[in-house]
């Protein structure tokens, strides 16, 4: 009973944060609403007994991804049309799509049956998860680490390409000025 109440409260928090994201104007406030949604989801995972996932949700999503996003918001405080006009011309189409998708999802959910719950003691406790992870899935973990490294190199490369292009443009302009 108490678990159901927790799930209800945190699910409401997650949905409220998601809805608030639509109506808040400043990207920083949208980011804070998204952080609220993510923390509510972490609480749901904890209420389900999946503590490892809850910790990763807070550490990786809130602690890394959203902090990065907030840095980007602080760097790009642009007050242009995207700030004054929140919604694009696709607002009505988006609303129609929202209603359609919600209808389809709810219809599918009401027609389907959930698989019977498997009773696995402590499957997601930190110790059990860590042993399973390092015994059975360490190769995937190593591959994901390589992927992350490639992403960092690619991000540096993107910035470097832009810098080189700018340097070349400046050199061309100086050359043209010298001859002209």
């Amino acid at each position, binding site marked *: 009973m108490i678990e159901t109440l927790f799930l209800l409260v945190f699910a409401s928090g997650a949905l409220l944060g998601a809805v608030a994201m639509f109506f808040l104007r400043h990207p920083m406030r949208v980011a804070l609403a998204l952080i609220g949604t*993510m923390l509510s989801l972490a609480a749901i995972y904890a209420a389900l007994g999946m503590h490892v996932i809850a910790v990763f949700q807070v550490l990786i999503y809130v602690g890394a991804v959203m902090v990065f996003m907030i840095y980007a918001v602080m760097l790009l405080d642009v007050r242009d*049309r995207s700030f004054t006009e929140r919604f694009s011309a696709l607002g009505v189409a988006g609303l129609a799509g929202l209603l359609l998708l919600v209808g389809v999802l709810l219809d599918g959910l009401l027609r389907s049956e959930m*698989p019977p719950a*498997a009773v696995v003691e402590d499957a997601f406790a930190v110790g059990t998860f860590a042993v399973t*992870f390092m015994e059975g899935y360490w190769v995937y973990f190593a591959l994901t680490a390589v992927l992350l490294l*490639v992403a960092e190199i690619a991000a540096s490369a993107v910035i470097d390409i832009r810098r080189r292009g700018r340097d070349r443009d400046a050199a061309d302009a100086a050359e043209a000025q010298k001859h002209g």
Partner: protein
Amino acid sequence: MDDMAFLLAVSGLLFTLGLVGVIVRRNLLVMLMFLELMLNGVILSLVVFSHQLGSEAGGVLVFLVFVVAAAEIAIAVPILLLLVRLKRTLDPGAYAGLKG
């Protein structure tokens, strides 16, 4: 409706809200945040099924998806910064001329 079906409905709603947000909002950064919301909706459904089936593999997959999401943001934000440095706007309409 039991707890798990309720959480699946929440995950569907989060995904739908994220998708509509990407379509209707006019700010590139906010659109990126709605993409994250969609991913969170999908992860919630993955967690629910993993919990229901008692599958540790589902938990591992969620962890790997978290790491991939971090990599995706590490690429997306620098690209966004460069685009904004180029045109000084976060309005996606200004980038309609991109041809690859």
